[in-house]
């Protein structure tokens, strides 16, 4: 069922959208997922087929159609500004992979150079 027609506007100008191995590796880095070469071997052709199929949305003439992001007309919902009970800290920390001094312990977020500058 893959379409040979690309999206009608913006994006890639090729006739059929494609995803290269380098692009998939880049996207995986953006999504913070490590992928091995073997995983890339499997994923790249699968994603390419899926992308070609979903690119069918480009066949619909919709330039003047407003986008719908949600089924409901969304409005901001506020609650009364009063103090309510919340999860005790011990419960919030109960599922944490690592805890220190009543807080989440996380790996370092700066590399050595950045840390030295800071």
């Amino acid at each position, binding site marked *: 069922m893959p379409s040979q027609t690309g999206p009608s506007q913006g994006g890639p100008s090729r006739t059929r959208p494609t995803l290269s191995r380098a692009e998939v590796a880049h996207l995986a880095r953006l999504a913070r997922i490590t992928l091995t070469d073997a995983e890339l071997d499997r994923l790249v052709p699968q994603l390419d087929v899926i992308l070609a199929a979903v690119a069918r949305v480009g066949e*619909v003439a919709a330039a003047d159609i407003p986008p719908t992001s949600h089924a409901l007309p969304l409005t901001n919902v506020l609650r009364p500004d009063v103090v309510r009970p919340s999860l005790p800290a011990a419960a919030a920390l109960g599922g944490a992979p690592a805890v220190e001094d009543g807080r989440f312990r996380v790996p370092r977020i700066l590399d050595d150079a950045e840390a030295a500058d800071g």
Partner: protein
Amino acid sequence: MAERVAGVPVDLTRSTAAATAAALASGHVSAVEVTEAHLDRISAVEGAVHAFLHVAADRALAAARRVDARRAAGDALGPLAGVPIAVKDVLVTEGMPTTCGSRILEGWIPPYDATVVHRLREAGLVVLGKTNMDEFAMGSSTEHSAYGPTRNPWDLERVPGGSGGGSAAAVAAYEAPLAVGTDTGGSIRQPAAVTGTVGAKPTYGGVSRYGLVALASSLDQAGPCGRTVADAALLHAVIAGHDPLDSTSIDAPVPPVVAAAARGCEGDLAGLRVGVVRELSGEGYQPGVEQRFTEAVALLTELGASVTEVSCPHFEYGLAAYYLILPSECSSNLARFDGMRYGLRVGDDEVNGAEEVMARTREAGFGEEVIRRIILGTYALSAGYYEAYYGQAQKVRTLIARDFAAAFRTVDVLVSPSTPVTAFPLGERVDDPLAMYLNDLCTIPSNLDGGPALSVPVGLAPESGLPVGLQIMAPAMADDRCYLVGAAVEAALDDRRGHPILADAPALPVA
């Protein structure tokens, strides 16, 4: 039919939720007896079916004892008090494991209950455990569960549908009379169709999403699974209604689903206008599915409805739009699984930085389908591609909603097959993502639109001997129409057959 003593089936697991509730209310059985019968059934068939990821036997019995004590004390109890229920493992349960079928949440114990679960407990339903699902509800067969597939009680070599295959199979295998599922693109209706059970996706916003682990927030909706339309309606009434903890929850009265189901059982659909969606038939639809669907449409006419064909020209783009919108939303939603505050953490050796730990954790914790969709969504949302993919898909979503609106100017409900094919063999589509996605072809439009839809069994496909579902779709907040039509069809077919459809399922091997 099961043997009865004083109006109560000897085998308590064969009873409908409504009949069990009546037997409990009249004191013919206790909640503990009903719960024990279902725990025994689970022990006997779980080895074959694998509908559950976690069975909470002790806690269920404790809950049942509390209901019995309250009843003995003369407390006013809800209509389903003491009736057992299974809950899809995507809804958080305080003190009870919640994995979403993923390794990344293995062993996690949530500190609070989802609103749906809270309402079940308040209504006195007895939570038996958590049901299997495709990882983070991504899939149509339950084969993408990290904990092994669920099997279809009609044929153990076939899939029970997905993502809520565990909930549907538990109900079909008499392990629970009711279950809660969630439906983002068909994950309640599609499993219901292929297991010969009833499943409903309520109007978006009709049931709280608080504590429902998000897949695609603009599409996700929890709803009921049961063996009869009336049972599903009773459960719908328990879990639906406004919740201040969900900003997308609709602040309006719950549609009168229980009354509609009761009215439907009387079998009179005079004055009802039914539209058959032209685009949801033809190529790719199994002959036996089309045959049973055509008969069901004829039955609607016999019951007094006026039936016309309706065109929804943009439905054919629903699958493509959905598989851009869903990955986009899920790539964002699943960013919360970063190995920092809960769940798995891999590679934290005091040397690796947070980003490295995050990337290793997500590789180890996420299965293939989840990784596929996150990467696709990351692509669809990236600069230079956003307009062509996510933006264009959102415009198609508008056009699909307009198709529904136009159709509902001339008809009260729309109908289609619930799925293009009956249950397929395990393994057949697991390495072919596109073929897997096609199972959601008929169910996706209602998710994009937000309106309610229900699947009810309409017989077995002659070529496979497996159940076929009829899908009934209605406008937002007209959920009662789905139950009215579903109950009428079910009552007429049960009457012709002389027994419920599940009585035709082969007996399961028991341990």
